């Protein structure tokens, strides 16, 4: 009985010190961002007020907003396509079970990790600085970021494949290309496509934001409207974003269910 109660005591001690530590951290953080309860309430009420000002939304901007939303859709779609294509070779290199030596695959994984740490918004800032404002910068940002994300997920898919068919084909004298075509691709292709479609959902959200840093899409309208505090225009832009993203979410979920 003794040792058990000691463990219990230690557990309790750890729990309490964790609790006290988090309270201290919390107080420190709250003081740091300079928020007190009154301010919080005032801020939230002014934000609720803003949502009120957005209605009724400015319908005269609807067509303009839809055009920009299509821009966002094309950025997301093409960016996903670029990422899906570029990610395939990188994933084959980074996967540890197929070809590459362990050093090369390690290198491949590190490259993917490095790309992934850049949020697409930061990439967009840099591409806007070098390619000028517009859709192209946004497209490149989404494309590069997706390459990192999809490369990682593709690598996982490749590492999970069943090696039975591969050894069977190799034993029957197939060359590398035939093995890839008949034993590897049929296993990974549906997963790759489903992963890319899921990525498209995420990229769709990202591409609505890019315009805030000048990289095209519906964010451009939002950014201008916010600068001039034209709330009804913000309202219509938000409505179009919510509807567009929802449509993309549902159709993507439907497609993924069909594929896998």
């Amino acid at each position, binding site marked *: 009985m003794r040792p058990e109660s000691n463990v219990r005591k230690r557990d309790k001690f750890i729990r309490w010190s964790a609790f006290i530590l988090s309270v201290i*951290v*919390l107080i*420190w*953080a*709250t003081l*740091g*961002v*300079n*928020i007190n309860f009154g*301010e*919080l309430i005032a*801020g*939230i009420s*002014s*934000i609720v*007020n*803003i949502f009120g000002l957005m209605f009724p939304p400015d319908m005269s901007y609807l067509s303009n907003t839809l055009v920009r939303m299509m*821009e966002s859709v*094309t*950025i997301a*779609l*093409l960016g996903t*396509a670029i990422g899906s294509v570029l990610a395939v070779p990188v994933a084959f290199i980074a996967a540890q079970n197929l070809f590459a030596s362990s050093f090369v695959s390690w290198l491949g994984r590190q490259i993917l990790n490095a790309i992934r*740490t*850049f*949020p697409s*918004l*930061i990439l967009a*800032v*840099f*591409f806007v*600085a*070098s*390619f*000028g404002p*517009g*859709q*192209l910068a946004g*497209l*490149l940002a989404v494309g590069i970021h997706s390459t990192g994300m999809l490369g990682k997920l593709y690598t996982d898919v490749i590492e999970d494949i069943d090696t039975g068919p591969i050894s069977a084909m190799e034993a029957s004298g197939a060359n590398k290309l035939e093995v890839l075509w008949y034993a590897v691709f049929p296993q990974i292709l549906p997963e790759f496509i489903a992963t890319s479609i899921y990525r498209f959902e995420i990229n769709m*959200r*990202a591409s*609505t*934001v890019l315009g*805030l*840093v000048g990289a*095209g899409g519906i*964010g451009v309208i*939002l*950014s201008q409207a*916010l*600068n001039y*505090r034209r709330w009804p225009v*913000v309202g219509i832009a*938000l409505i179009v*974003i*919510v509807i567009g*993203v*929802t449509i993309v*979410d549902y159709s993507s979920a439907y497609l993924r269910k069909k594929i896998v």
Partner: protein
Amino acid sequence: MIVVSSNSNFDVSKIPRPNKSLKRNWTIGLLIAFAFLVYSARNTGFNFNTVADGLPDFFRLIRQMYPPKWATFPSLIEPFIETIQIAIVGTFIGAVIAIPVSLLAANTVNKNNKLYLVSKFIMNLIRTVPRILYAAVFVAAVGIGPFPGVIALIFFSLAIVAKLTSESLEAIDTGPIEAIETSGANKLEVILYSVVPQIAPSYISYSLYVFEVNIRTSTVLGLVGAGGIGQTLMTSLNLFMYQRAATIIVATFALVIIIDLVSTKLRERLI
């Protein structure tokens, strides 16, 4: 007279055959996707020339950023601390508000169907809009600084933690709830003694996960004026202080990786 037994009405045409329409659907689908891609490429001006034109500028930018100037690091400590503080406060307040909301959005606890559907709908609605857009809207509403960033994170953390927790709540063992109910406990006692013990570890784990996400987000909140290190990055770029920008980026990576490691370790211990 031949007696037709039940298993003799065998029809050759009922044997499943390789599906021809499946192949056709795939081909049509791929063609449509390809046509749309070509259209998109033309629309966005994405072609070899435009990319090749911009690349030299891009590499010049990268060259100007190298090497990061670590002498500027002391001036970055304060915005970094602000970044962490925004994430902590946003996550905490959001996660606390998420507790009652997740109870409303779980049909094992909340038996009122209308209230249940409404709260599910609102949470889905909140999650459709990207976090940065909230931040941008709130900056326009209450002014530049960490405050709109915190509120944006509260919003988003609330929606995600409440969604995940309510899903766990819907999967809990209802045995203890019924047992305590039959022994005459009121709603609060039911929640306190049969729901909370089952849900607490996953709730804390979700909150930690959202904290990781929020740290990442709060590093870019500043790009739209919502405080933290992103704002310093934006000013550095606008003032062409590229080496300082490089320092910020490297340090941001380090921060994100450290937080991820710590949070993953904590979550592993919890579950």
